[in-house]
């Protein structure tokens, strides 16, 4: 996925505009994401099963993201194109997996995201208004990533653009689709 380029326009010599805007400056929507919930239990074998999940997917050549640890499960995302491969590999290794498809990863970009207060509540309010259930989130220093149903992505885009005052050119779409059989 390409990082969104910040538009910078040079003013006449001696008058240059420099820094990135404070706050949210772009939205990226990655369509065709799958999300897996893989049971790992909470007994003494949990760690071993988590490791089995990661090594199985690595051996199958499935890159994963949005990896989260839960009390009895590991959840992670991959592209729809890798869905069949992931399901086959995990199942054949005796791992109980539940895959949700037709999801969109909505990535809200801001410079120094972790220094901003209130972005998460603004995003949550927007997604709630769009009727989009948040299946998982991720965050980094310059983004908050939200996994929602693809069917709500367009409405979520509208709400988020309105909330953060983003022009259409600040929105970028990607497609990593091809669903499981």
């Amino acid at each position, binding site marked *: 996925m390409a990082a969104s380029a910040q538009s910078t326009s040079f003013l006449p010599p001696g*008058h240059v505009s420099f820094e990135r805007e404070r706050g949210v400056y772009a939205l990226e929507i990655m369509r065709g994401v799958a999300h897996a919930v893989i049971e790992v239990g909470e007994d003494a074998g949990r760690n071993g099963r988590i*490791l089995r999940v990661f090594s199985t997917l690595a051996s199958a050549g499935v890159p994963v993201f949005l990896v989260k640890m839960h009390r009895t499960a590991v959840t992670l995302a991959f592209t729809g194109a890798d869905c069949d491969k992931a399901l086959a590999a995990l199942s054949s290794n005796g791992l109980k997996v539940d895959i949700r498809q037709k999801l969109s990863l909505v990535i809200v970009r801001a*410079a120094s995201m972790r220094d901003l207060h209130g972005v998460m509540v603004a995003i949550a309010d927007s997604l709630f208004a769009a009727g989009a259930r948040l299946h998982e989130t991720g965050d980094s220093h310059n983004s908050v990533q939200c996994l929602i149903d693809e069917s709500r992505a367009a409405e979520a885009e509208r709400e988020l653009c309105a909330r953060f005052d983003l022009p259409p050119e600040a929105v970028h779409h990607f497609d990593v689709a091809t669903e499981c059989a």
Partner: protein
Amino acid sequence: MMNILVQKFGGTSVDRAEHRALAVRKVIQAREAGFSPVVVVSAIGRAGAPYATDTLVKVLKDIDPQVPPAPREMDMMMACGEIISTVVFAHTLQTFGFKSIALSGGQAGIITDDVFGNARIVEIRSNYILELIAQGYIPVVCGFQGTTDPSASTEHGAITTLGRGGSDTTASALGAALNAVGVEIYTDVDGVKTADPDLVSKARTLDVCSYEEVAEIAHQGAKVVHPRAAEIAMDHNIPLWVKSTFSEAPGTRITSTVPAETVGRRLTGITHTGKMVYIRLEIDNAEHKQQVEREVYRMMARAGINIFLVTFSPTSLSFCVPRNRYPVARDLLDGMVVPVQHTEVDTDGKLATYYIFKFSEGLDLAYSVQRPLLASVEKFTDIVDVPATVVESCTMVSVIAAGHRSVSGIIATIYEALSNAGIAVYQTADSEMSVSFLIPESEVDRAVRLLHAKLFED
């Protein structure tokens, strides 16, 4: 063609006469190599040194610890450290026989917005500095500061500071404004390292890395170049170097071009950051969960508490807060009541559900006061506890791995290494550029060494 080279020297490069002499030598070398140097300096020394920024701030704060200084006056005070440093550096250059001139941020034409303490550069009026260069001067500019527009109707010409990493930001911005051939950031290490050299003796210096990588490394805790400076250099395509004042090592070149030999994933380094507290809230109602979560976010936002590593499960919400903000977060959440109105009266005649947050025994003072008060409405409402469990003393170890989302295996490798060493992993986070693991703070040194050995030394 002026062939301008911006050279920035940090606090440890200008704290002593012998260090300044070494820094001045770098400037003279640049001049002798045919460049027109523009120098940017930080305040002299670090915390505790007589003219360090922290020392100056303490002078103000000590007047009455109960009354915080006004941001505007605070910025004026903080700017003094760089002014002293600039004058000393310029005079040192003069003693070596070079025409030099000290410039405050405002004199160098750096115009910022009026957010005191964390101002953003909106413009650089470079005519004066270009004129000085044309006259053969070596301008020495105060890092970390600017002024608001002198023609603005409010806060005209007020001194502002740029916040953390401000001197790096000044250097990058000047590089862009002056169309410099490069910006050199001089520090006390000889470039961008694969890990903190204080922790990992085998940490090696990177010859080259991308703007995105160095910004990620900086954001994830390594003190190399401030991410704002990297972003300015990236947006304006200014070549950036990180070098040591104290050696002749070539340093690290930071550029937009990824090394040719790199295909797919590229491992750049290991960083660690932050003292954190991990909070997990059990919200056992799928229908109301999103509304309850929103109120948690809202409360944290109102208190100015940043939350991160947010994680959902069908019955819980988990997130991290900085440890220094945890007492506030706990006090706000414990006993907090979130009422959710039912769309219709349920079969038990209940009109709403009240969710009340409860921290563990001993930390649930507000809960223990609030909960009995809700007894009076129990006839019409469901009262549901939201228990909170807390893991204190966590920290985040990150592996900077550009492209890891398109190549499998990195998470498996890291998890296996940590797991085999018996290091608990509470949570993970990943972005396009990095993979992070939340682990016990007590294990951070071991984890960094272990991962460095696994990923960079094997």
